[in-house]
């Protein structure tokens, strides 16, 4: 055996030992391309319950009502009454009924979800077409119709994060383990 081959074998053993310490890195061909925070921003649309991720902008219920009448009413009915699709307003006190009315006001635990979902998925035929001001305004309108905020209240990154939903304490976390029994 030549010295060269022996050295090669020793290097291989060393590489294997390193690989075992970090199996993932060892197996990866390393083809991920680094991307800057600025460049990935157009995709970074999720909002955390504490408001992290809420963008600049603002809106009030009156502006939201005007947008709703044009872009939302056909699916969600007048003032969020529902039909043909999901009802968005009312239903408080129905969660113990056989038929519950689960709406933003009666069921949703976090206001951040309203903004997040409207921005990512609505209007159904043209998702991600609304401006941030329009999303804030629609969020304000739906919260106002559910009696959670006042018509004068402006929704923005600071105020929306502070909205406490009526059913905030209505959930039991099943992961990692249920704690209620």
């Amino acid at each position, binding site marked *: 055996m030549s010295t060269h081959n022996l050295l090669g074998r020793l290097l291989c053993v060393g590489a294997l030992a390193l690989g075992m310490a970090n199996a993932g890195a060892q197996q990866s061909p390393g083809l991920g391309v680094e991307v800057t925070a600025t460049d990935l921003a157009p995709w970074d649309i999720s909002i955390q319950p504490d408001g992290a991720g809420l963008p600049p902008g603002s809106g009030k219920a009156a502006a939201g009502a005007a947008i709703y009448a044009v872009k939302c009413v056909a699916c969600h009915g007048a003032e969020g009454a529902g039909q043909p*699709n999901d009802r968005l307003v009312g239903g408080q006190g129905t969660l*113990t009924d056989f038929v519950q009315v689960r709406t933003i006001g009666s069921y949703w635990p976090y206001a951040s979800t309203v903004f997040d979902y409207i921005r990512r*998925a609505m209007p159904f035929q043209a998702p991600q077409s609304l401006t941030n001001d329009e999303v804030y305004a629609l969020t304000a309108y739906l919260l106002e119709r559910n009696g959670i905020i006042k018509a004068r209240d402006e929704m923005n990154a600071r105020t929306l994060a502070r909205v406490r939903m009526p059913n905030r304490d209505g959930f039991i976390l*099943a992961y990692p383990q249920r704690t209620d029994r």
Partner: protein
Amino acid sequence: MTNKSDIEAAEVVAGNGLLHRRLFLATGATLLGGGLSLLTARPAGAAPLEVPPWMKAPGTHMSAYGQPSKYEADVQRVVGGTPNVVGSGVSFTPHHRLHGTITPNSLHFERHHSGVPDIDPKRHQLLIHGAVKRSLTFTVDALLRYPTVTRIQFLECAGNSGSNLAPQPPQAPCGVIHGLMSCSEWTGVPLAILMDEAGVDRSAGWVLAEGADAAAMSRSVPLAKLMDDAIIALYQNGERLRPENGYPLRLFLPGYEGNMSVKWLRRLKVVTAPTMTRDETSHYTDVLLNGKALMLTYPMEVKSIITSPSTGLALRQPGTYEITGLAWSGGGKIARVEVSADGGRSWGDAALAEPVLAKSFTRFRMAWRWSGEPAVLMSRAIDETGAVQPTRASFIAERGERMNYHNNAIQAWSVATGGEVSNVYA
């Protein structure tokens, strides 16, 4: 020759004609040959055999992509939808027309929230960012070069079997009541490799997974699950994913409720708490009788369904039949499946088809001699953790009957004197 009554007495294992599973094992082949023929009335009056026309001329040519026989053209997904919303809805796997454990790709169930996107794989990317050392994007071509694993595992929608919580039992085929589940061989890249490449902060705890459909459907996933057995699935039953199942790539989380295996995956953001998206708050949560709701209910619990006989599959005459179905558990392997023909008063062990795999469909079989009298057929699965499939009564005692998710209660099929099979609550 063995006496007929001796065989019948020796092989009955539970009430109303359930026979020992040995009838399906190789060691019982001799008995199977002699025994079953003794138990079944032989059809009379066969006509003289004729040579069919397809033996008298060559058949058709090869085909580039095969299709089922035209005589099986009615084996289809049953497609449901939401009124006035194109692309939102479900389609059901017709389990009452299928056998084995692998669901054909064309019949895998569907649940879309805003239609099936037409994704050009050259323009699709996967982004991993958030609590990582370096934010990375991966092209589809790049991911196809990564190490892969292959596993046979089920996917079940949390809403599967939900219609069985309606006030009256739906008289629909098995595949419509229980068709939001399927099982495939999935091949893809272990997420742990990609997460390590990005330098994930393992203390972060959670990952937001987001699809590239028009709903940008998104769910929070425990980081521990992603680092354990999650994959970026690229192939389903050997071929690239179908568009309706996430082409060009999807998240696949073995044993978890189907909605979390986000299709058309485009983004994974490592975060410190669940994002509480619409589909983990207003939907995919389970309201209890006291009005409180369970959330983050991830594993699909131990369950089994008799696929035949089932609604719409009438028995023509008394005699010996194979009761067969599927059992599975998000908790691991199926340990045992018991079958009852007398509405749960007595149970016998079914034969399990090998291989029995974790978080996968297991096919079970049981021989049954139907006397022609009314019978109620049930199956009950037990997994390797000892979890037992609940009765309907015990399920609704805690959860109610209010169209919730995660219904894994025992299914009962009633066989009437005339052989008609119907769905019953028992």
